[in-house]
């Protein structure tokens, strides 16, 4: 157990370090944030050079990288160019919004996909099954930027029962969360159906029936139980995806989470802020994956944490 934890900790560190380094170079090799920002504002060459010198952007990229890594190691992620404030508190302030959005989307996913997957597999090749499979294929292939606006048109504009965007009321989370849940919902419905069908054909299910258990019990204790194991892993991965990949949905619905913060930071050439946001997301994903592994080991007796 201790070895498992130590190994995962080192691995987590390596992943976050790699993500941080990659984003640093990707951002800094793409251009110079100070020139971008100040030339738009109509500053002269001398003014720009002065600010670049003052903020250390005239140093070679390797020196800046070393500086960034050492400061970040001490928890200092620099100041936002746009806001002039420390970046970390800015990011952390947005994080709960992203978590709520991802959490609600995951909840919707689970509440819809699990019953649908079980239903489809219980009546394979029935009309119900085929409908569910078709809808799932559709849900998996329609892009988010199509789903979002359609939902807005229906529920906000046409029916006027849900807010269009923002985060003013509790109800604001519904549309973005539903939009975000489309893909994982479809994916998990299909996965659960396939995994249920596989388990249904297994000998322990036939043996359970031969022992005289009711169909309800067989489905609940023998089929669903085992069929949910692979689903769990994918749920964890999808939650990680939702934490990091909500940029489009947060933009479409003007949801003030990390996704829209990152987008704004990139548009404003606010490299330090974008950098901090990416690192926080990476840490969140690593933590979620770790928790998934722990939960998996808890529910599947065949897996040991080692």
């Amino acid at each position, binding site marked *: 157990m201790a070895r498992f934890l130590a190994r995962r900790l080192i691995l987590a560190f390596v992943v976050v370090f790699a993500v941080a380094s990659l984003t640093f170079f990707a951002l800094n090799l793409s251009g110079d944030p100070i020139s971008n920002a100040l030339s738009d504002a109509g500053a002269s060459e001398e003014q720009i050079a002065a600010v670049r010198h003052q903020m250390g952007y005239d140093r070679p990229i390797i020196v800046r990288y070393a500086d960034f890594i050492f400061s970040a190691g001490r928890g200092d992620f620099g100041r936002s160019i746009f806001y002039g404030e420390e970046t970390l508190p800015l990011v952390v302030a947005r994080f709960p919004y992203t978590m709520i959005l991802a959490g609600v989307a995951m909840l919707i996913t689970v509440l819809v996909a699990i019953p649908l997957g079980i239903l489809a597999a219980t009546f394979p090749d029935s009309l119900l099954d085929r409908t569910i499979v078709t809808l799932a294929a559709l849900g998996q292939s329609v892009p988010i930027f199509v789903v979002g606006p359609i939902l807005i048109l229906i529920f906000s504009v046409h029916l006027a029962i849900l807010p269009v965007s923002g985060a003013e009321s509790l109800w604001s989370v519904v549309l973005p969360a539903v939009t975000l849940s489309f893909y994982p919902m479809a994916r998990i419905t299909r996965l659960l159906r396939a995994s249920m069908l596989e388990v249904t054909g297994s*000998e*322990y299910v036939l043996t359970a*029936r*031969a*022992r*005289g*258990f009711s169909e309800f019990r067989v489905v609940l*204790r023998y089929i669903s139980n085992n069929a949910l*194991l692979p689903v769990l892993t994918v749920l964890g991965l999808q939650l990680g995806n939702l934490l990091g990949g909500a940029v489009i949905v947060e933009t479409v619905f003007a949801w003030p989470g990390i996704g829209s913060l990152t987008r704004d930071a990139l548009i404003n050439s606010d490299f330090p802020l974008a950098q901090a946001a990416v690192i926080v997301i990476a840490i969140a994903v690593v933590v979620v994956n770790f928790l998934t592994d722990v939960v998996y080991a808890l529910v599947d007796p065949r897996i040991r944490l080692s």
Partner: protein
Amino acid sequence: MAESVPVAPQDAASLLSVRDLSVCFHAKGETVHAVNGVSFDLARGEAIGIVGESGSGKSTVALAIMQLLAPAAEISGSHVTLEGRDLLAMNPRAMRQVRGREIALVFQDPMTALNPVLTVGQHMQEALYLHEGLKGQAAFIRSVELLNLVGIAAPESRLSAYPHQLSGGMRQRVMIALAVSGNPKLLIADEPTTALDVTIQAQILQLLARLRDELDMSIILVSHDLGVVASLSDRVLVMYGGTVVEDATAEQVLLYPKHPYTSALIAARPEIDGDRDVPLRAIPGAAGRQCEPPSSCSFAPRCPECMDVCSQSLPPLLFVNGHGTACWKVSGIDGERIP
């Protein structure tokens, strides 16, 4: 009590009576006739063996008795009666009462026949609650008792083990303990030792023989190995292509086989103390899938003693002194017997 459909029992001691059982599978526009007109009787406390090569329909007979065939299966024109009640006419609820309590099933692969996420104890509790209504301490005591019965040492410590933590032989013992937890009158064991190594195989067969006496159970033992079947069974059914080709005592089948297929099966058995220079004899040819109900002897294409009549009409299973054979060569082709 289970709903009863009165059908006159064949004789008073008869526990299970299978009459003219036929099963076909409809899959992908094709129909496979897996079992064709199988009949046999099983007395209380009797053990019969069913042997035959892969695909001969042994498991299909076992599952048909339990009413656990896949939805693609169709049972036609048959009776399967347990103490006079027709199992084929029972509703699903009544049939569930029969499963586990009157007829129990043990499968080949103990590796996959236990739920991987439940402990041995949880399996036992579940079965004991369903069959006997036992809970808590009572269920624990009975679990230990049952594991003792099937020869598991230190049963208390095994209750918390998961299936993957047990050896193959141990798992099969647990399977058997679960099977007898409902005090069944009949235990169907479908290749219970095939996945185990030879010494364990012998132990499991001994265990089944002991349980049969101690619990007064009837047993149907399914195997492709004539030796395994003969060691435990009073009577042996030899199946080929979904039909019973020979039905006699274990001794008769082993020592005085009449059907050419049975003779070939015995000849094909490797002898441990046999001469190593003698090559193993395989039966030439292969059993085909049957897409039509048989109208002639299905062994005819591979039979060394095949006659014209064999590929023209189906030989009936005829008994002489309790030794049944379905073979024109054996019964003779006097015109009256041909239906």
